């Protein structure tokens, strides 16, 4: 029986987007019932404050209905409580901490500390999304109150790594617990880079929102601005013109290509295969230069606007893409073969950093990390957006869950991207690429969801509007955030010196995307 028949007061917000209002008392049973169906997936959980009223919102992806279900739980009082959902749905662990810290809605019975994303010197009781202050307000610092860990038992050594780590990498902190060279456990301390993007977006106009979305994760800029623009378009009840939908798909796949090349380069660096790194960097750089030529920006910033794209593709540019793609395809085939013949590389990936499939599913692993561990989901296929419904592509799947599976999966995804781009170039509809900005009329109080399969996993954006077409609340769940939760599970039993860098690179996660 579908959940949509089971729940009584289901309201259709937009096509494929439903909403049910619940009380805190019947939240647990509802989530339990939803999780019982393996085709329903917990996606996001956040708090909203509007006009003095607070809401706890959960989002589930209903894959068999190709739709999304919002569970809305209005809460009242100074410190509203609900029963922690971690037992019925483990993936909510970090989300509940975030809601508690940033909205003041407390999960009773939550197993861990509630402090997660805000800096250690942030005063308690100041809720960024609990209303009452703007992003520019100065919040005084208090004595730092970091999350304290139990000290290591005898014979076990805590090895802190970060936030400033070796190489040109993003900032994040790992606390590695080791017995000799063997890793026995680890704790993650991310969120050093928390810039408050969602808070920053409050009060921003439609003109500026894409600029903010692009900077959630610079290397997935197009994916995130696409999700945002789709959310705006759904809220306004309009659709981008056909040509814009195809071009968005094209650019999204170009972005996936350069990211996946960069991923292989990083993985080669971790295993010491310097020639492989150089070769994949060449492919990546060529695509970035192509981007610069097509969009005026190497990372495709400034291309997505609500209602379409800011610029069209000329026939010459189409040929340029075609030629570059032919080069990419040819070179990529050679490089892939060389990779698999490089035992020094493959041996270090095999059975390294295994994420068990049952854990991946329970903890909500998404994107390439999930698909490499048997989670057969891809928003491009299961919840088609842009022009994916009209194009033919396969979703590769691996079941081993190790670093090799993740690397192989991305190699296959590159080939599928080549296929997609070929199809798009061959069947590009002719129409305008943008509806006039005046058509993007969003009424105050309207909200909508946008989603995208970014190179690092699914990104889900929820946007609610206030007066004058300004954002009132912006919520972003990136693929990296979902996948970081699963990362520590892949670490125990491996060597800190030789395996850890490989595991880290094989997940290919972004700190910026997770920290926001």
């Amino acid at each position, binding site marked *: 029986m579908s959940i949509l028949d089971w729940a009584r007061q289901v309201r259709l917000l937009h096509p494929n987007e439903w909403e049910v209002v619940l009380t805190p008392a019947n939240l647990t049973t509802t989530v339990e019932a939803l999780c019982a169906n393996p085709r329903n997936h917990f996606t996001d959980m956040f708090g909203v404050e509007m006009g003095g009223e607070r809401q706890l919102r959960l989002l589930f992806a209903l894959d068999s209905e190709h739709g999304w279900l919002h569970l809305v739980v209005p809460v009242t009082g100074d410190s509203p409580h609900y029963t922690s959902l971690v037992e019925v749905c483990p993936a909510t662990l970090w989300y509940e901490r975030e809601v508690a810290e940033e909205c003041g809605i407390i999960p009773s019975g939550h197993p861990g500390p509630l402090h997660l994303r805000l*800096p*250690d*010197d*942030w005063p308690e009781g100041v809720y*960024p999304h609990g209303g009452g*202050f703007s*992003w*520019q*307000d*100065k*919040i*005084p*610092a208090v004595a730092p109150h970091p999350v304290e860990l139990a000290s290591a038992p005898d014979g076990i050594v805590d090895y802190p790594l970060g*936030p*400033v780590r*070796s*190489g*040109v*990498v*993003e*900032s994040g902190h790992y606390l590695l617990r080791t017995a000799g060279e063997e890793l026995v456990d680890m704790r993650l301390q991310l*969120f*050093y*880079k*928390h*810039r*408050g993007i969602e*808070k*920053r977006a409050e009060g921003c106009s439609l003109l500026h929102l894409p*600029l*903010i979305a*692009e*900077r*959630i*994760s*610079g*290397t997935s*800029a197009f994916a995130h601005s696409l999700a945002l623009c789709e959310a705006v378009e759904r809220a306004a009840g309009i659709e981008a013109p056909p040509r814009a939908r195809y071009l968005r798909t094209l650019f999204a796949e170009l972005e996936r290509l350069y990211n996946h090349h*960069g991923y292989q*380069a990083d993985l080669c660096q971790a295993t010491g295969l310097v020639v492989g790194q*150089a070769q994949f*960097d*060449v492919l*990546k*750089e060529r695509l*970035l230069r192509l981007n610069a030529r097509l969009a005026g920006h*190497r*990372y495709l*910033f400034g291309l997505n606007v609500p209602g379409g794209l800011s610029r069209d593709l000329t026939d010459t540019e189409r040929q340029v893409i075609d030629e570059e793609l032919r080069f990419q395809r040819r070179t990529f085939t050679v490089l892939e073969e060389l990779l698999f013949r490089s035992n020094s590389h493959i041996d270090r990936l095999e059975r390294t950093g295994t994420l068990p499939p049952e854990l991946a599913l329970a903890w909500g692993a998404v994107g390439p990390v999930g698909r490499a561990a048997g989670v057969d989901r891809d928003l491009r296929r299961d919840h088609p957006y842009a022009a994916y419904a009209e194009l033919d592509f396969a979703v590769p799947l691996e079941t081993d869950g190790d670093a090799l599976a993740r690397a192989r999966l991305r190699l296959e995804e590159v080939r599928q991207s080549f296929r997609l781009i070929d199809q798009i170039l061959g069947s590009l509809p002719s129409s305008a690429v943008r509806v006039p900005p005046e058509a993007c009329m969003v009424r105050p109080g309207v909200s909508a969801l946008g989603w995208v399969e970014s190179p690092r996993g699914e990104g889900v954006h929820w946007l609610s509007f206030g007066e004058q077409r300004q954002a009132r609340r912006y919520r972003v769940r990136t693929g990296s955030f979902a996948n970081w939760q699963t990362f520590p599970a892949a670490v125990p039993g491996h060597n800190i010196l030789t395996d850890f860098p490989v595991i880290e690179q094989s997940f290919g996660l*972004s*700190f*910026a*995307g997770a*920290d926001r």
Partner: protein
Amino acid sequence: MVTFELLDEPDSSITEPSTALRRQIQHLFGRSLHIRHVDAGSCNGCESEIKLLTSPYYDIHRLGIFFTTTPRHADLLLVTGAITRAMVDPLQRTYAAMPEPRLVVATGACACDGGIFGRSCLTLGRLSAILPVDTYIPGCPPTPLALIHGLLLTLGRAEQRLHRQILAHHADGKA
């Protein structure tokens, strides 16, 4: 310890190096420079470009510039990002661990002057509020070529192209 809220007022202890000192530093580092990069809240765009500096297309080693893993071996601190609250302390500690003389370069719109974030409840908005900055490389993100130019400028091996410009202004009918 410097806390986040104390950083609103410009730190008077931060001074620019004198021209003579700067020339001496440039002489020291002119042909061999080691960089420590610190991400203080970027979107990963700057990191992606900085990483490409060592790729075959840019091969920054040919210019005698190298990336080092530890600040203790570093001559130059390359900072990206809008200086988030949580990164203020690690950034200052990294700087303190560097031997003198040391150079600091602000990379990208966020580190130069806040970019889209500016001074907010969670970001400091600009690197110059906590460290003496030698060179600013604007851009969002700066391209690898812009980064090379910025690094060479810091070493006195390139010309600065931009200068403060005060434009004569003649609006219609008022000229």
